[in-house]
């Protein structure tokens, strides 16, 4: 516990908590529109931004935000077109992104430890300036995702209906794309580009096993994200493990616990309250 007296550990904890709260708030919309792995794709593209930033001696996070936004918007345009070549275009973008990142980092003076920090996260090296960026952008994502929930829900749930409702469907889709890019970039510092999708998706997957509605799923997923981030950083500090990986493993462990407990509970309930055999609907036609 005394580790948390050090400012760098406090920053790591606060940064992780902000991301743990914001990532599932966005992730629920991505899961709903079957784009659970989009965060991975955007992360790959963000890596090119990191490489470019390191090479040009500019803030890697800032350049990564720009690269990730361009990538996310490109993915959204490919998705909206809905053509069969879409997944190939995505593959080109993903692998182009990560190859570009590795190449550019290699060209710069950065070491492989530097590259690792972005691939797998480096919570303990968060500077006070980084923390401000994470907190401001994280709060912006959180407020947007909660305030626009009815509209974002409608667009993610039934895009055609949303269009006939006169909602600005294209703008809302681009908003989700940009929010994904921003979330990926701030979470890159915490869990790394290779693990970012986990924080967006796993808490949602855990929550939806026990919830009944969208709103309750969102609240539960955010609580689970917060729990995973806090517990993960604590485990990392006490057991000296990699913080990013610890956070993700706590999230996955929660998923398994809820999945097993939910299964056991459903079985028990079925046994204690034996439901009568389902009564068939009355015949609507008589077959002779």
């Amino acid at each position, binding site marked *: 516990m005394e580790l948390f007296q050090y400012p760098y550990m406090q920053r790591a904890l606060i940064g992780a908590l902000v991301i743990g709260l914001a990532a599932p708030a966005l992730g629920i919309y991505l899961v709903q529109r079957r784009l659970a792995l989009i965060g991975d794709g955007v992360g790959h593209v963000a890596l090119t931004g990191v490489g470019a930033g390191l090479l040009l001696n500019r803030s890697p996070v800032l350049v990564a935000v720009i690269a990730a936004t361009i990538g996310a918007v490109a993915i959204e345009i490919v998705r909206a077109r809905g053509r069969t070549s879409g997944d190939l275009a995505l593959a080109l973008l993903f692998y182009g992104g990560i190859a570009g990142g590795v190449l550019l980092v290699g060209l710069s003076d950065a070491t492989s430890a530097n590259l690792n920090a972005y691939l797998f996260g480096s919570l303990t090296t968060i500077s006070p300036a980084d923390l401000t960026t994470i907190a401001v952008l994280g709060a912006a994502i959180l407020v947007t995702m909660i305030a626009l929930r009815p509209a974002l829900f409608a667009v993610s*749930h039934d895009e*055609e209906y949303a269009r*006939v*409702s006169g909602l600005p469907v294209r703008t*809302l889709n681009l908003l989700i794309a940009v929010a994904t890019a921003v979330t990926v970039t701030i979470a890159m510092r915490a869990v790394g580009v290779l693990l970012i999708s986990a924080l967006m998706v796993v808490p949602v997957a855990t929550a939806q096993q026990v919830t009944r509605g969208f709103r309750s*799923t969102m609240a539960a997923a955010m609580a689970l994200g917060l729990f995973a981030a806090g517990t993960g950083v604590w485990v990392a500090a006490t057991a000296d493990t990699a913080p990013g990986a610890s956070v993700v493993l706590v999230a996955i462990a929660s998923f398994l616990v809820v999945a097993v407990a939910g299964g056991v509970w459903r079985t028990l309930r079925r046994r204690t309250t034996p439901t009568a055999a389902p009564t068939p609907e009355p015949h*609507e*036609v008589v077959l002779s």
Partner: protein
Amino acid sequence: MTTPVITVEHGVVGYDGRPVLRDISLTVTAGEVVAILGANGSGKSTLIRAVLGLVPISAGSVTLFDRPLRRFRQWARIGYVPQRLGAGGGVPATVREVVASGRLARRGVLRPPGRADRAAVDAALLAVGLADRAGDPVSTLSGGQQQRTLIARALAGQPELLVLDEPTAGVDAASQEAFAGALRDFVADGGTVLLVAHELGPLRPVISRAVVVHEGRIAHDGAVPDPAGHHAEPDHDHVHPHCYDEPAGLWSN
């Protein structure tokens, strides 16, 4: 009551160069209940999707409430009921949450729901007989109840025109009756309806005009045609019985 609500003039729609609708002209005036009939693949669903701007027309024009479709913005006046609810990515949503989406056209994106919104959602749930299922996840509902959820979503927006795509396809008899009742109430309050159907069933008395689409053209526009063949038998309601008794197999217990 002769204000045109929907006007299609010489509408042509094609998918990938293959024409689906060739030269369609259709006018629906306020207070009418128009059924678009036709065989599968005749282009009847495409026609209403073109009216709503979900598929682009390659020639001709569509006018909604006296405004060209391109410049039409008063979407709150229209309630759209698609054929079925998309499965989504598995994130649960309650019946009430889905129906509440119907208020967005009226409320806009930024304004949080108020008392009028909640009252309209309650009324819509009541109209389709789902008030007691409001808190249940839509995925636990039967196909017919899901269809009623979509109708409630459209009604919640308090539209003047309802556009429905095969609202009774594969829907159980109880839901068909509930739906016919909701539609009657809507029309009695002065609403206009354009619906696509394969089979009219209990809706038949509500329909004021039928349009038959055949191979992308309008083959009939006027009185509801009498059903032919075995469809004409009095007790035929085109609801297929479900299979109750599955054959005993490896997985049955």
